[in-house]
């Protein structure tokens, strides 16, 4: 799979709008990183350079932020990232079993990606869906009151879609 490394022109324009919201450009770093990742699937070296230059910091300062925030990653991951919560409220209602079911079904473990680049799996901390436990997010979409059957249905549904990077 070809890796996209550079963000689009339209996103660069959105960057200008976001940067203008703050008295210091640096404030925009984390939102810019996340939006760049949303577009190209990960935070590429090129994106780091671009963002550093736009907010007027050295690239290493951008990298310092990336390593702090758990949603940011510097390597491509699957098109559909299964983020299963196993924190206390989810654990009490079977969150660990949901995680293990996903692992078995997808054939991958925590923070791994299927060879076709379709799925990634991650055990995550509280998603703020405690009353709908057990819960997970696939990319930004919430799935609550999960059962192994619901997970199976979702995986089958997603498998029918085109492989490729996240869009």
């Amino acid at each position: 799979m070809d890796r996209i490394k550079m963000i689009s022109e339209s996103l660069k324009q959105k960057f200008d709008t976001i940067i203008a919201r703050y008295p210091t450009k640096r404030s925009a770093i984390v939102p810019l990183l996340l939006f760049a990742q949303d577009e190209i699937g990960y935070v590429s070296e090129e994106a780091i350079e671009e963002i550093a230059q736009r907010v007027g910091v050295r690239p290493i300062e951008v990298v310092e932020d990336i390593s702090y925030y758990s949603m940011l990653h510097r390597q491509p991951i699957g098109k559909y990232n299964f983020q299963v919560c196993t924190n206390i409220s989810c654990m009490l209602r079977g969150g660990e079993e949901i995680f293990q079911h996903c692992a078995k079904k997808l054939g991958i473990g925590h923070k791994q990606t299927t060879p076709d680049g379709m799925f990634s799996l991650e055990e995550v901390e509280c998603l703020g869906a405690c009353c709908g436990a057990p819960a997970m997010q696939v990319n930004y979409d919430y799935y609550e009151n999960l059962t192994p059957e619901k997970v199976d249905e979702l995986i089958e549904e997603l498998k029918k879609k085109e492989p490729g990077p996240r869009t």
Partner: protein
Amino acid sequence: MADYSNSMPGSPLEVKVLTRRIGIPGSASIDVYLEHEGYQALRKALGMNPEDIIQEMKKSGLRGRGGAGFNAGMKWGFVPKHTGKPKYVVCNADESEPGTCKDRVLIEYDPHQLIEGIVIAGYAIQSHQGYIYIRGEYRYLMEILDRALAEAYARGYLGKNILGSGFDFNLYTHTGAGAYECGEETALLNSLEGLRGYPRVKPPFPALIGLYGCPTIINNVETLSNVPHIVLNGGEWFAKLGKPNDGGTRLFCLSGHITRPGIYELPIGFPLRRMIEEVGGGVWRGRRLKCVIPGGSSCPVLTAEEIDVPMDFDSLAKIGSMLGSGGVVILDEDTCMVKAAWRIMKFYAHESCGWCIPCREGTMWLKSLLERFHGGGGLDEDPDTALDVAYNILGKTLCPLGDAAAMPTISILKKFRHEFEEHLKAGSCPLENRGAGPGSKDSGQPSWAPGPSSSQL
């Protein structure tokens, strides 16, 4: 997007103030909001003296809904009136306390209520700029907020010369990217400035030196959503809904082993026993109660004998726990408390930002100890060692994350010591051995799956 009734099954015992518009079709749109008293409080506030709004806030007894429970009016009152610097209002929408999912519904179904509260807060402290810091995972909520902000700008409730009053206020959303620590107010400010979310030394408090070194108020989503109601109906009315010095209602999130999990709006001081038995329908599957986490995973736990307590800040403090963020987690008789302690600690070890050594090292040590202990490798001295480590985190860190990790651990070690003894005696988890435990592997990783184990999260 889920139907609201999934997370809000409803109860006749609810007193709906913040959630009263939820259920009306299109409640997130400005037109529906305007049809239901929307922006009337802002209109009233703009005709008031800012100082009087702060007085009304103090009278209301509204205390911070993010967990700390500080009087919101007092917080606003600390902002200096005359300063050459800009002032800022920051809304903390970084909801991530385990067991808490209330801000989500307030934003999803009534974003204008929050926006109105923020603008009034801005007027009260004479600030002209605000940010809503929202956790990265809540992307769909940020989109809802961005749409609502655009509507509010278009109708003149934001921007220049709001409703012809001469008051200007700009408001933006700002996304985080995954960090529990950024819910702590000074770490949030660093994050908003584009830095790693490390906490700052307090004092100075943000009211004096906050965002960009300027006076700043930071309030939780639920706190700010209460503001329009206080302005419209008066501080006294609000105080009477709850308790003196702790006014209003709370959005309680009932989760875990409860028959009807959900978010319920109940008056401050509502009895915990009735909340579990009548509002939530009791412990699930007809089982008995073992333990309650009363306000998010940072709070000391309560045993089944301790639930005859009114749910307000002072009553819970009196029995050695906290009301926290309103996340009420129910644990039934078949729950292993060693495992619960381990899972809670695994979270704090993952989320410790690493700035303060007692928290960085202590949470990792406790997580390893509890994991080993629950897995059958416990030593006689482990419970005392764990207590020692926890007490050496408590009060020794810049921000409350260290305390938040230590307190539940200490309470479980003290109140459920017998379960630790039973593990030692059995050489493994007695509950899982009889097949009733919630899971059989602690690693969260099937043994056949390659790759790093979850303990390296």
